[in-house]
């Protein structure tokens, strides 16, 4: 019995030693460890159209084009592209590129990938609304034809990563994992085979995902790390502790309350910059009587004076000072700086003017103010609930009593988003944030948030309050197909001017991208909160 136990321990020890040896074999060179509060939900680049997933997988997979540190497009798997006819985009493909498994990158992979992204359970189908077909011309050329001129097609393709057709077919992953078919577990959910600067070494969902440098990458890596180990640390305090103790070198989501401590710590630093996302307030301007208000028989938000009064009463600078700890960039526009179609000259907020606001309300017929319910998320945007609470007290100064209902995102969005038939969401006054992350262009904002909602045109899907202006609709539809940049920009400006004058929404601020890291780490921070590992330098 005793001998048996001792042998067991010895055997286990020997086993552990051998497995440790194999475990450390890859951990050579510069190992960069980083953490985030949530995991990448899938290794499949079309599984979820969300920033963090695309940001992470862009280290492994690449698109035909990519964005540099300043969000400008640059060649990636395509070396050049041109508009052959107004509806035909032609791409010349990079030659001699190999996938991580050694198969060469060919035109068929592009055609396969784009069709895969536009079919089945893919969440990327929205990118291809204008696409008619994609086809191979020869080994070096593919052509993408659109139904109508789409000036943003190339911008969209920066988010569509190219997979290997042979690899997908071999592993039975020609489609995206379909939740309605639970018997088909999908190989691409757990594995990845791209052309990018890093290869997927190992993956434990929700725990750790390890990438290693791809020595055979076609481009030169600006950074110097060899291994990137991604950990998920959900608890904010633990994440900060792990950074301060040096167990991780970088944290992606920094808890606002720890920013100060981390920038004062001699071993860590905080890098913050303007994020493209704009956080704003919206009104129900569609119903004839508000769902959540004591005003009966009419809708006060249909009156522009009421909306103007709200705008004038909300002090975004105070919000920035107190709630956002300086980490916000107040704005008057629904389109953030850093996005094509942002116009600095338009970005002027009306002055804070409580008395003026009261007068506007009185003129509109509400000298005693009124009561309205407000919907707000409490786990979606930086300090979202605190911002809403501030709005409540700021509006109290003009005698508007706001009844706040802040809830978790899963419940919040179900409440306020428009219904599948495009009927309005169950809200009277709400907060949202938006970044046109599919195109990096203001048209996306017009189309989704500002155009008149309609099941027929499929526009305005994320316009819960139903702001509607015919002229803006017209302009937006023209912009969609206008390929002349000067004309297009002029229309973008005009549409935003109208929206601004009518106070269609109340933009509050662009929140900040806040990253924290050890002092010996240097990164390139992108305004879209995308974190490319290829720029990471460790001393």
């Amino acid at each position: 019995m005793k001998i048996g136990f001792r042998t067991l321990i010895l055997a286990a020890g020997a086993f552990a030693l051998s497995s440790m040896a194999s475990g450390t074999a890859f951990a050579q060179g510069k190992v960069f460890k980083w953490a985030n509060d949530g995991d990448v939900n899938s290794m499949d680049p079309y599984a979820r159209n969300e920033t963090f997933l695309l940001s992470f997988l862009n280290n492994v997979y690449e698109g035909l084009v990519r964005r540099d540190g300043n969000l400008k497009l640059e060649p990636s798997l395509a070396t050049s592209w041109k508009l052959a006819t107004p509806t035909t985009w032609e791409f010349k493909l990079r030659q001699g590129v190999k996938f991580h498994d050694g198969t060469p990158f060919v035109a068929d992979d592009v055609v396969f990938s784009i069709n895969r992204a536009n079919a089945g359970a893919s969440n990327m189908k929205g990118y291809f609304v204008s696409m008619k077909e994609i086809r191979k011309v020869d080994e070096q050329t593919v052509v993408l034809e659109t139904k109508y001129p789409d000036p943003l097609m190339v911008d969209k393709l920066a988010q569509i990563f190219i997979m290997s057709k042979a690899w997908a077919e071999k592993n039975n992953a020609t489609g995206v994992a379909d939740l309605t078919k639970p018997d088909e577990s999908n190989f691409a959910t757990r594995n990845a085979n791209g052309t990018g600067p890093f290869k997927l070494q190992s993956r434990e969902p929700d725990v750790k995902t390890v990438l290693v440098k791809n020595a055979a990458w076609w481009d030169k890596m600006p950074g110097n790390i060899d291994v990137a180990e991604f950990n998920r640390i959900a608890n904010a305090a633990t994440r900060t502790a792990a950074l301060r103790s040096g167990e991780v070198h970088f944290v992606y989501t920094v808890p606002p309350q720890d920013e100060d401590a981390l920038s004062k710590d001699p071993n860590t630093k905080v890098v913050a910059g303007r994020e493209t996302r704009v956080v704003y307030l919206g009104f129900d301007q569609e119903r004839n009587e508000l769902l959540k208000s004591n005003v009966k028989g009419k809708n006060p938000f249909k009156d522009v004076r009421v909306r103007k009064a709200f705008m004038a009463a909300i002090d975004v600078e105070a919000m920035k000072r107190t709630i956002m700890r300086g980490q916000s960039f107040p704005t008057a526009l629904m389109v953030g700086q850093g996005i094509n179609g942002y116009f600095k000259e338009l970005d002027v907020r009306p002055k804070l003017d409580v008395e003026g606001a009261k007068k506007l309300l009185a003129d509109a017929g509400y000298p005693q103010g009124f009561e309205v319910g407000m919907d707000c998320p409490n786990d979606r945007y930086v300090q979202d609930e605190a911002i809403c609470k501030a709005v409540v007290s700021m509006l109290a100064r003009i005698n508007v009593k706001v009844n706040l209902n802040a809830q978790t995102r899963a419940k919040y969005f179900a409440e306020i988003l428009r219904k599948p038939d495009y009927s309005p969401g169950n809200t009277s006054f709400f907060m949202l944030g938006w970044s046109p992350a599919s195109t990096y262009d203001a048209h996306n904002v017009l189309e989704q948030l500002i155009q008149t909602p309609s099941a027929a045109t499929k526009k305005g899907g994320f316009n819960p309050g139903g702001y509607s202006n015919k002229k803006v609709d017209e302009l937006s539809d023209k912009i969609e197909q206008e390929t002349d940049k000067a004309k297009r920009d002029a229309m973008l400006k005009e549409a935003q001017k109208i929206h601004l004058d009518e106070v269609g929404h109340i933009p509050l601020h662009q929140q900040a991208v806040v990253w924290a890291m050890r002092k010996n780490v240097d990164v390139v921070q992108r305004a879209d909160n995308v974190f490319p590992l290829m720029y990471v330098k460790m001393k």
Partner: protein
Amino acid sequence: MLAFIIRRLFQGIIVMLAVGLVAFSLFNFVGDPINSLVGIDTPLDEREKLREQLGLNDPFPIQFGRFVLNGVQGNFGLSYRMSEPVMRVIGSRLPATVELSLVAAIIALVLGVGMGVFTGLYPRAALSRIFLTVSLIGVSLPTFLTGILLILVFAVWLGVLPSFGRGDVVSFGAWTSGFFTSTGLRALILPAVTLGLFQLTLIMRLVRSEMLEVMRTDYIKFARARGLTDRAINFGHALKNTLVPVITITGLQLGAIIAFSIITETVFSWPGMGQLFIQSVQSVDIPVMATYLVLIALFFVVINLCVDLLYYAVDPRLRFDGSKGGH
């Protein structure tokens, strides 16, 4: 005896069904899973199609019935969040939770009994007072605070132990273990102490009071009169008689340890089932939540069954009653 086990297993199935039913009726209130399934700019009609395909528009008795029907066949579906089979997701977390709970229970039992005996035998010793004072902290501090404090001291200030994760693991087939690597063992210390602290203090106080009680009894006096050694009296007679309630409590607390591990796992980013459950709630991952809850119900049923069977083994009166066919 066999009839008893079968009866209990049958009751167990009813308990699991009831838990599943309650769980499903609650899922109506946790929010819309679609929002965590797709990117924000997914068109409304596409969302609706997905909702329809996943059967989320069906009334909850139908959803529940479907879950039971598939579950009986061993098919618990795909996790909404991770698009992987639920059983694989939960199976990969199970070892982490089991190992953590086991170590926490052992720490609680060994230290708790040891300290309990000491404080029971020497109630006036300075060390006993220290133990008792410290145990107050264990009882009164919430788990997440203890965890964060330990991280601050041992990971951030002293830098000797890791603050998160499970270290390197060795896999034996489907089971992964952190017992066989130095990083795995080091990573285990803080969470296990955090998780076991409450139970430790509970057991210590229980053993102490039982010891104080037993030491006053006649048979201890008699044992002394017989001239037995202190050691034989303290451990052979006194401790043995205090252990019956301790075993009962330990059995009951095993369930509590698994339940409390949700908090400990979240604080230490321990990749176990508790953390999985929390994240599934946040992202409204209904298949994982439902399966987890039913599984935990199964755990409790099995633990209770084992405790009942232990009573049979320990208490002859129960056996006697059982053979007569009813109690």
